[in-house]
C-alpha cells in the first residue's frame, strides 16, 4: 500500500496532466482569455440546445422513387422499341400496381422484345442481382417487376444525390458549420447552428426544384381542362397560383417534346427589365442550350409552360427563337422566393421530395441562458458538495475534493480531445457526475472507518479500505456504464450528449477517486506516519 513505485507515480500524474491540459483551451475561451494560436486547441463543441440553432430531420418519400423508376422504364422501353429494327409495336402499356406491363402486338416479335428488354433489367450493383424480374404471360404480355434489391439501390442512389443537393443548398445560404448526415435508408439530418430564420431553410430544403418546359396543347377544350380531362398525348398541370394562370386553374401540356431544366450552369435572381418584377435568370449548359434553342425554334408563336415541381408557374408565348442559351423565368415571385428558386436550381433538383418530419430549434438567447444557469448550478453544487465532504471526512475529504476537481477537468479534457458535443442535459450530467463520483471515496472512507473500529492499525485499515471497497465500486460503476451506454445507443442528440458525459465521467471518476487518492494517501502515510486517523 505504502509502496508506490516511482514509475507508477509518474504515469498517474502524466495521464492526469495530459487530460487536464486538454481542457485548458475550452476553459480559457469561456473565461475570455485568448489561447496561443501556436498550441493545439481542442475544444468542446456546444450542442444546438446550448449554442442555438436548428435540427431538421428530412424524410424522403421512398414510394416516389419507385414510381419515377417505373416511369423512366416505360420511357426507355418505348424508345428502344421505336428505334428497334424492325420497330416493335406494343400496346396496353401500364405501370400500375408497381409493375410495368405491356403487350407485344406481333407474336413473332416476342423474342426480339425480350432481347431489347433484357439489358435494361440487369443490376448495376456488384451482387449480380437483377434490378427487374421479367415475366411473359399468355405468350406476349410482358410484366417487368422491380426487385427489392433494385429498389433499395435506387433509393440509396437517390438519397446520395439528395444529400449532396441539400449540402449545396445549405452552403449557398452561407451558414457556418452545418452538419448534414444520412440517417437510415431514407432520412437526412441537417443541423445548422446559430440560424436566425429556420423557416427559410425549411422552405429551401422542401423545394424539389424540378424544372420542365413543355409545350401547351392548344387543342384542349378549356372546360375539359378545368375538369382534369386531357386530350390524348397531353396531361393536365395545375397552375401554381391564380396570377400564373390568369384566371385558369390548370393547363394542358403535351407529354412529349418538352425539355427538362436540369442542364444548367447558372441561375440567378434578377429583375425583368420591362416590369422590374423579380425573375430568375437561368443559363443552360451547351447541350441544354442546344435543346432549348431547338424547342423554341420549332415552336415560334406557340405558348409553352414553365413547370416547377409539377405546377405551372407561367405559360408565355415563344415570340422568337431563344438561341443564346439563357432564359428568364417569370412568375409571381418576390425577391426572396426568386432568390430561393435560383439557389435551388443552381444546386440541382432533388431526386425525391423531402419532408420535414422533425424540427428542433433553439434560440441563441435561451441557449446562452441555459449555459449560464448550468454553470451557476454546477458551481454551487460542487462547492456545497466539497464542503460536505470536508466536514464529513476531514483530511480524507481534502483528497476527495482534489479528486473531484481533477475529475471535472479530466472529463472536459477528454470531451475536447474526443470532439464530443456538450448539450444541455450534458451539463446536468456534469453536475450529477460530481455527485456520483464521490461515491467511490465514500465507500473507501467508510470502509477505512470500519476497519479502524475493528481495531486494525492505520496502514492496514487504509489498505483494507481500498481493497475491500473495490468490488462494490467496480460493480456499481459497471451497472451505471450499462445504463449510460444504452442511453447513448438509443438516445437522440441531447440525450446522447448526457450519456457521453456520464460514460466519460464514470471512467475518469474511478481513476481520480481510486488511483489518485490512493497515491496521495500513501504519500501522506509514508511521510507523516500517523498513529491514529481522524475519520
Amino acid at each position: 500500500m505504502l509502496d508506490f513505485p516511482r514509475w507508477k507515480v509518474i504515469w498517474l500524474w502524466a495521464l492526469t496532466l495530459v487530460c487536464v491540459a486538454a481542457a485548458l483551451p475550452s476553459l480559457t475561451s469561456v473565461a475570455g482569455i485568448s489561447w496561443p494560436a501556436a498550441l493545439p486547441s481542442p475544444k468542446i463543441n456546444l450542442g444546438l440546445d446550448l449554442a442555438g440553432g436548428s435540427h431538421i430531420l428530412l424524410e424522403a418519400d421512398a414510394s416516389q422513387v419507385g414510381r419515377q423508376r417505373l416511369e423512366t422504364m416505360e420511357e426507355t422501353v418505348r424508345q428502344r422499341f421505336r428505334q428497334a429494327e424492325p420497330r416493335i409495336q406494343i400496346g396496353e402499356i401500364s405501370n400500375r400496381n408497381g409493375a410495368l406491363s405491356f403487350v407485344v402486338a406481333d407474336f413473332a416479335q416476342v423474342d426480339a422484345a425480350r432481347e431489347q428488354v433484357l439489358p435494361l433489367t440487369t443490376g448495376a450493383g456488384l451482387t449480380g442481382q437483377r434490378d427487374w424480374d421479367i415475366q411473359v404471360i399468355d405468350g406476349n404480355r410482358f410484366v417487368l417487376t422491380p426487385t427489392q434489391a433494385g429498389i433499395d439501390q435506387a433509393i440509396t442512389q437517390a438519397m446520395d444525390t439528395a444529400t449532396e443537393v441539400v449540402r449545396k443548398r445549405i452552403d449557398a445560404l452561407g451558414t457556418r458549420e452545418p452538419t448534414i448526415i444520412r440517417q437510415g435508408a431514407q432520412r437526412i439530418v441537417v443541423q445548422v447552428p446559430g440560424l436566425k430564420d429556420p423557416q427559410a431553410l425549411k422552405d429551401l430544403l422542401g423545394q424539389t426544384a424540378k424544372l420542365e418546359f413543355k409545350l401547351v396543347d392548344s387543342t384542349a377544350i378549356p372546360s375539359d381542362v378545368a375538369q382534369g380531362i386531357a386530350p390524348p398525348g397531353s396531361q393536365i398541370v395545375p397552375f401554381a397560383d391564380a396570377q400564373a394562370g390568369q384566371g385558369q386553374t390548370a393547363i394542358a401540356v403535351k407529354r412529349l417534346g418538352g425539355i427538362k431544366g436540369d442542364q444548367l450552369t447558372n441561375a440567378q435572381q434578377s429583375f425583368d427589365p420591362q416590369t422590374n418584377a423579380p425573375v430568375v435568370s437561368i443559363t443552360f449548359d451547351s447541350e441544354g442550350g442546344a435543346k432549348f434553342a431547338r424547342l423554341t425554334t420549332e415552336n415560334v408563336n406557340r405558348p409553352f409552360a414553365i413547370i416547377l415541381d409539377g405546377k405551372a408557374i407561367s405559360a408565355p408565348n415563344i415570340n422568337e427563337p431563344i438561341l443564346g442559351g439563357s432564359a428568364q423565368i417569370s412568375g409571381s415571385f418576390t425577391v426572396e422566393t426568386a432568390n430561393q428558386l435560383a439557389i435551388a436550381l443552381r444546386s440541382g433538383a432533388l431526386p425525391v421530395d423531402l419532408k420535414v418530419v422533425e424540427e428542433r430549434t433553439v434560440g441563441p438567447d435561451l441557449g446562452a441562458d441555459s449555459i449560464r444557469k448550468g454553470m451557476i448550478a454546477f458551481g454551487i453544487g460542487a462547492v456545497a458538495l466539497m464542503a460536505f465532504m470536508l466536514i464529513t471526512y476531514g483530511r480524507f475529504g481534502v483528497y476527495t475534493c482534489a479528486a473531484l476537481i481533477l475529475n471535472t477537468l479530466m472529463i472536459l479534457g477528454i470531451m475536447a480531445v474526443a470532439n464530443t458535443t456538450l448539450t444541455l442535459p450534458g451539463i446536468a450530467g456534469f453536475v450529477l457526475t460530481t455527485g456520483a463520483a464521490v461515491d467511490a471515496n465514500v465507500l473507501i472512507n467508510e470502509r477505512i472507518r470500519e476497519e479502524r473500529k475493528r481495531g486494525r492499525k492505520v496502514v492496514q485499515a487504509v489498505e483494507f479500505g481500498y481493497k475491500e471497497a473495490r468490488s462494490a465500486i467496480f460493480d456499481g460503476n459497471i451497472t451505471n456504464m450499462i445504463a449510460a451506454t444504452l442511453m447513448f445507443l438509443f438516445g437522440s442528440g441531447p440525450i446522447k450528449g448526457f450519456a457521453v458525459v456520464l460514460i466519460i465521467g464514470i471512467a475518469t471518476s474511478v481513476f481520480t477517486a481510486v488511483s489518485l487518492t490512493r497515491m496521495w494517501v500513501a504519500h501522506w502515510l509514508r511521510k507523516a506516519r500517523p498513529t491514529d486517523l481522524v475519520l
Partner: protein
Amino acid sequence: MKLLKLVPDNTNIRFLRWRVPFYVISLLLMAASLTLVFTKGLNLGVDFVGGQMIRTTFTQSAAAPVAELREQIGALGYGDPIIQQFGKPNEISIRMRLPEGAAADPELSDAMTQRITATLKSAHPDVRIDGVDSVSGKVSGELFRTGMTALLAAMIAISIYIWIRFEWQFGVGALFALVHDVTLTLGLFAVTQMEFDLNIVAAILTLIGYSLNDTIVIYDRIRENLKKYRRMPLPELLDLSVNETLSRTIVTSTSLLITLLALLVFGPDVIFGFTAAITLGIFVGTYSSVYMSAPILIWLKVTSRSFVPTESAVDKQEAAARAQG
C-alpha cells in the same frame, strides 16, 4: 476537529423486521401506479405523441398574457393550446397536438407552426421565440419505441450482469427493485401530470443506474458476510449488512441530493422535469435498495453455500494439497 457523522457508529436498526408491511405497501403503491398510468395516463410530450412545442419569452411584460394567447391561438382552428409557464412568469411554452391529417401530410404541421408564430409576432411585438420542437407522428412513434426499448434493455442487461457477478437470487432482487423504481416514477408522473418526454426516459435510466449502485453496495456486503458468518440466520445477516453500509448509503445519497438540489434551484428551467425525476428517484431508489432488493433474498432462500465451497469440496482440496505437499 470533530467530523460530521450523519449516521452514528454501530447502528443496529432491525430494518428487516418491517419487511412484510413495507413489501405490502410497496406492492400496493406499484399496483396503484400502474392503475394510474393506464387510467389517467401519462402527459406525453411532443417527443412521444407528435405535435409542437413553442417556447417564448415576452421580453417587455412581467407575465405572459396566457388567457389572451389561448384565445388567439384557439381562433386559428387547430384546437386548444396547452400553455405552461417555465421559469419566470413571462416565459411560457405553448404545446399543440398534431393537426388533423398530419399523419398523411407532414407539411400541415409545419404550416401550423408558421401560422402560430406569425400570430404571436403580430399580436405581441415583444415576443421572442426561444425554441420550436416539432415532431411528426411517425417520428414520435419511433422515439417512443426506442425510449421504451432502451429502458427494458437497461433493466434486463443490468439484471443479467448482477446474476453473473452474484447469484440468480440477486439478479431477481435487482430486477424487482428496478421494476419497483420505474413503476413508482411512472406513477408519480401520472399523478402530477408532469410532461413525460425523452428527457424523462433518460432521467429514469440515470436513476436506474444510481438505485442499482445502492443495491450493489448492500449486495456486496451481504456476499461478504455470507462468507464470513456462515451460521448466522439470513434476516439477521441482512440487517447487519444494511447497518454496516448505512453510513455510506446516507452519505452518498446526500451527496447526490446536494448536487441535484443545486440543479433544481439554480439550473436551467428547460431541464427542471428531468432533474425533478432524478431527485425523486434517488429517494425511491435508496428505499428500494434496503426494503425491496434485500428482503427478497430471504424468500428466494439465499444461503452461504452459494458463495462458500461446501465442506466436502474443502476436504477434497485439502486432500489434494496434502498429496502434493
